[in-house]
């Protein structure tokens, strides 16, 4: 048992559901008690989804506990099969129902005999893995399931250069924008996109995955297992360098080139792209970030320190960008992806003073308080910590708030991503003239506001009870209530405000 206030990564079933609802025409069934289906709320609200989230709870209640849940689960699977005619139904328990140790796999087998669609059981240990690992695992499971099923040996690779993008997920941090940016990049490089999974992909597509010449894994949190599986089974090379920041962009593009050259099959393409000159042109002219870092604006970064925290992909990439592309000192960097600690350490060892690998936000908070950086780059939790410590924070990683599910185009990957990140970094610091002025005038508004009221009337007197009552009203509306009540009292010619007067005023004025 541990005392927990907050967590960076969610429980395993969230990961499974994210994969399931990213695919087109896949329905997830949660074997869960009432109220455990809040994934629907998260997806509907954060992604502002117009469609009903394709996830239904098969409710576990007392009745089910007493009699076993097989009938209900099977009935619910068959019902969804009939109502929605999905291609695939994925059954998952939650932390709670997984303890029941029911043979859900058996339920699935039973249902799949009768159902028109395929049914699988998401095989995830709910006490061993978190949301991220479960998503990775489930994606691999779905891909493996369809490739095992197809049994096609006549897999051929495309003549033209081609790629699968694996790991774009619903509720992922800026995933939609990143995906669009990657499409643009690959088009520039004249590489055809064979499949993008799971977001927007059909489950029938995994069958065709091996046709691509290589796989691109933009985020190592989800997709790496699938890539490794495809590498092992079909010898498909994969690129897992995250194309974030100018340096890693170049590295990623060079690896793409290498991957394309690996296969013996000759590339038949109409035009040849000169990768090096593309990298050069993009880095120097399309991306403004490299130039911007050298411009006079960014002189103010001199001597500033930052703390970075996030998932392994984003924390590592941003640390590298800050340190080697923008010349900002990273005092501490860290990740909550404890399962990926080795890789993370390896990546950032030359770019920061110290590192922290933890999923306890209090520890991160303590470090930030100790370092007192000029800016933080982290998750919504670090933003919150920053608010308390009055340190600005740019959000660079999940978990994020609704502000980071922006309607506008805000990629983190690709050359446009470098611009977005440069903006984010620059705007996160209190810089330039503002910084100077703050120094000169010792902070923001220092003058105490003497009175909020403009009228010179004699204010009615509040008796102790009404004063106490006023204190109970939430602060953000208290002034309004006070003004309205006094206005009411004045209108009625009352000199004293009592609790009764307050109530009467609310009735009359609200």
């Amino acid at each position, binding site marked *: *048992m541990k005392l927990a206030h907050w967590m960076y990564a969610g*429980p395993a079933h969230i990961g499974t559901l994210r994969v399931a609802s990213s695919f087109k025409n896949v329905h997830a069934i949660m074997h869960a008690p009432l*109220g455990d289906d809040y994934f629907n709320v998260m997806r509907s609200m954060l992604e502002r989804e117009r469609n009903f989230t394709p996830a239904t709870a098969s409710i576990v209640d007392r009745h089910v506990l007493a009699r076993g849940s097989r009938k209900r689960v099977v009935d619910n699977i068959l019902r969804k099969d009939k109502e929605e005619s999905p291609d695939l139904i994925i059954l998952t328990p939650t932390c709670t129902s997984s303890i029941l140790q029911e043979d859900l796999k058996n339920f699935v087998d039973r249902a799949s005999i009768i159902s028109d669609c395929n049914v699988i059981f998401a095989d995830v240990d709910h006490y061993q893995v978190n949301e991220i690992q479960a998503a990775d695992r489930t994606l691999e499971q779905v891909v493996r399931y369809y490739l095992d099923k197809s049994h096609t040996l006549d897999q051929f690779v495309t003549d033209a250069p081609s790629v699968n993008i694996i790991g774009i997920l619903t509720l992922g941090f800026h995933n939609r924008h990143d995906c669009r940016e990657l499409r643009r990049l690959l088009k520039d490089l004249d590489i055809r996109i064979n499949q993008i999974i799971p977001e927007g992909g059909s489950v029938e597509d995994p069958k065709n995955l091996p046709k691509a010449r290589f796989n691109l894994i933009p985020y190592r949190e989800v997709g790496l297992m699938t890539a490794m599986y495809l590498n092992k089974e079909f010898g498909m090379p994969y690129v897992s360098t995250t194309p974030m920041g100018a340096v890693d962009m170049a590295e990623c593009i060079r690896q793409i080139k290498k991957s394309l050259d690996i296969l013996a099959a000759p590339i038949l393409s109409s035009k040849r792209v000169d990768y090096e000159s593309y990298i050069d042109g993009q880095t120097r002219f399309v991306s403004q970030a490299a130039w911007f870092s050298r411009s006079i604006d960014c002189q103010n970064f001199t001597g500033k320190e930052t703390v970075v925290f996030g998932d392994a992909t984003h924390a590592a990439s941003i640390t590298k960008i800050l340190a080697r592309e923008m010349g900002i000192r990273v005092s501490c960097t860290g990740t909550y992806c404890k399962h990926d600690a080795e890789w993370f350490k390896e990546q950032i060892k030359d770019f920061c003073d110290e590192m922290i690998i933890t999923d306890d936000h209090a520890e991160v908070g303590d470090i930030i308080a100790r370092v007192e950086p000029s800016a933080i780059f982290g998750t919504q939790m670090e933003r919150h910590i920053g608010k308390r410590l009055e340190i600005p924070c740019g959000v660079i990683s999940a978990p994020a708030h609704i502000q980071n599910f922006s309607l506008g185009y805000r990629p983190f990957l690709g050359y446009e991503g470098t611009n977005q990140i440069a903006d984010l970094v620059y705007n996160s610091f209190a810089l330039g003239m503002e910084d100077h002025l703050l120094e000169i005038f010792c902070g923001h508004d220092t003058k105490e506001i003497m009175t909020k009221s403009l009228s010179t009337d004699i204010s009615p007197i509040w008796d102790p009870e009404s004063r106490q009552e006023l204190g109970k009203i939430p602060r953000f509306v208290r002034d309004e209530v006070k003004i309205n009540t006094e206005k009411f009292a004045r209108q009625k010619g009352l000199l004293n405000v009592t609790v009764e007067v307050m109530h009467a005023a609310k009735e009359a004025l609200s």
Partner: protein
Amino acid sequence: MSTKIDETITFECETGNYHTFCPISCVSWLYQKIEDSFFLVVGTKTCGYFLQNALGVMIFAEPRYAMAELEEGDISAHLNDYEELKTLCIRIRKDRDPSVIIWIGTCTTEIIKMDLEGMAPKLEYEIGVPILVARANGLDYAFTQGEDTVLAVMAHRCPEQEFPIGESKETKTKTKLFPFPLLKEKKLVEYANHPPLVIFGSLPSNLVSQLDTELRRQFIKVSGWLPAQRYADLPSLGDGVYVCGVNPFLSRTATTLIRRKKCELIVAPFPIGPDGTRAWIERICPVFGIEAQSLEEREERIWESLKDYLDLVRGKSVFFMGDNLLEISLARFLIRCGMIVYEIGIPYMDKRYQAAELALLKDTCIRMCIPIPRIVEKPDNSNQIRRMRELQPDLAITGMAHANPLGARGIGTKWSVEFTFAQIHGFANARDVLELVTRPLRRNENLDNLDRTTLVRNNNEFYTSTPTPR
């Protein structure tokens, strides 16, 4: 209290595949209400992530509640539950020094049959902090019923009513001690001499004082609230104490008060809307032999002040998908406002506890000359969505998961949780209910020529014909 439900009210029961919040969410409002409490939710990551995400509350600096997160060792019973909880509670006592620690049992503690009730008294004795155990689990309860489970256990901790009704020793002894009448006693004169009345249901303190004032106008003194602002101030209960609820989801608490604490329950409609508030007071008054005064004019005045809103809602239709058990009361109020209610979905319906509310619903329907809407217990969301497609209501009051998709299908939506958190009780707050209800309607009228095919307006004419209250 004889409230026979007319046969015309029919109850249906569906599959129970509906979306609602987990009952542990009650923590989010109860910890704010009971200022010296600490809530410890004993559950899994799934529970914690719910509190953090769906309610977005845990992020606030050091709240007075936390999760005791069960890990693999706890589930497989490798670890000693008692020792584990003891460590956590000692830490909580050290960090927060609460007057009471409330353990919230979850589905997981039910399934692994963790004996929270057995451990609590032992640990309470050992660490010297009262520990209550409420089983707010999703196996048995829905959303707001979490509060019900907490208040029911809290009722057990209320002190016994010490003095026989009628003669209050306290005041007698005090008058001997103090020759001058105390201010407090002077106030007592304002009240009629009646048996104690305790009101149950968690409301923000300004609402508590509003309802206290309403009853004081009828010379009725509220001797206490369950829960009180502080755990130490729990009201005295016992034989001869009258109790009355303000929330429709407190049937378990009501039963506990009747059976275990021997209180007399006043079955009344709930004080939501001017009609409900009036009926609530009118039910309480005669119990104490008091004739309610000037309530009719008061209700009239409130309706008068709501006129601008009523014009907006009259004739509009509404569909309750069912979420927080406030549905019957809200539907009754909205019908009285002139709206048409197609369906009242409700997770659970205690017909005895809600008898007076149901009777008022029936009367309201007769008064407004509309058929009584169907009441669907344990609704099935898929079926409801299908029915809604047929009925095309102007407004759906729904859980958060369905709001955007229904909106995209041209149905105005309002989150049911907003009614859980907004202040909707009492005369003056009827306006706030209508403010919530009319917001999507007003907004739609503001954007009324943006139908789903055009989506934007060509010219920038503003439609001033729409009455926009406030």
